[in-house]
């Protein structure tokens, strides 16, 4: 499951931050996973919890924002919302739309001590 690879990358990012900013543990891990990022949230949460034990993430609350994806429909030239890649434009029914916001999965911030 790629959620495990992604969780591993999150742990790496957090541990780099721990080395740089010197903290003992994370109380709260705040992530952003946009709708079209291709991540199953429950699996991601499970993967993070599994990897957390005996690390600086052990016991941390995991907060995951799921921002809606904004897109621009080229057919009717309007801003729309989409949930899945195969969605048609909610206004004109066309499929020629482009994501207008970022689909990156991010570590937003950490509450640390």
């Amino acid at each position, binding site marked *: *499951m*790629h959620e495990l*690879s*992604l*969780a*591993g*990358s*999150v*742990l*790496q*990012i957090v*541990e780099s*931050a*721990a*080395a740089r*900013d*010197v*903290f*003992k*543990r994370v*109380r709260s891990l705040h*992530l952003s996973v946009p709708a079209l990022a*291709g991540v199953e949230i429950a699996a991601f949460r499970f993967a993070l919890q599994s990897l957390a034990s*005996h*690390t*600086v993430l*052990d016991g941390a609350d995991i907060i995951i924002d799921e921002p809606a994806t904004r897109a621009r429909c080229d057919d009717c030239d309007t801003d729309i919302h989409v949930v*899945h*890649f*195969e969605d*048609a434009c909610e206004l004109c029914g066309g*499929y*020629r739309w482009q994501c207008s916001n970022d689909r*990156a*999965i*991010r*570590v*937003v*911030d*950490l*509450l*640390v*001590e």
Partner: protein
Amino acid sequence: MCVVCGCGQERGETSLKSNTPDGTSPRIDKQTGDMHFGASAARVSVPGMSEIRTLKLEKDVLSENSRLAQLNRAHFAAHGVTAYDLVSSPGSGKTSLLCKTIAQLVSRRPSLPVAVIEGDQQTSLDADRIRQTGASAIQVNTGRGCHLDALMVGKAFEQLGLHSASHEYRESPESLNTIGPPSALLLIENVGNLVCPAMWDLGEAAKVVILSVTEGADKPLKYPDMFSAATLMLINKIDLLPYVDFNVEQCIESARRVNPDIQVLSVSASSGEGINDWIDWLLQHRG
């Protein structure tokens, strides 16, 4: 180490520094260069201060892979190599298609160097088949991993003869500015998986998704991330069309719903139909 571009390790060196999330180095077969990634050791927490504060990071989780992919991209460009990431479900016929493609490339462009990076969980069976065609291949075994990543591809590229042989390309000033067909082809056969490889940039010029007619024309709708990430869809095993219930037009329409700009070619690795058009695409496509 490569003194031209500063890349790479000594041939035959078996301990590579790895910054994979699990912290392990791959085991490398000295004879073939095949690489085996495995399971991890636990990480240890870092002791530090006890005051509570918020650290703002805004860090893209895939940023490290993206960084390595960009390094691969620059490395390929410096060596005149055009790389493609071939993705599909297991059993779509990727390896057979690669063998047929290489055989035809050898007769059309005998002087074009071609190499393959093969991704699977285990065994070097696929790389062995490719090597029988005369092309060089490196097998990358992911262990329990479900996709190749930029680190694996970067390390595998350093092991290939394509890498050192194409240093001559860099030497001639006119070749650096030439816009022409690739001087070398690197075909990356990803782990058979229509989900995870979509997210991992390897530094390729384009992703090519291979769908066989025995799989179902609605695949693009069921696996939209992959078909959205691909530049070309290759419909394979078209020799079997008379025997299966596969509607090619419906398949293309499904793919265009999730990716309006996707290009489509139909091929048969066993009969050879469409292979020349596919080779034309490989030789003419720009990333």
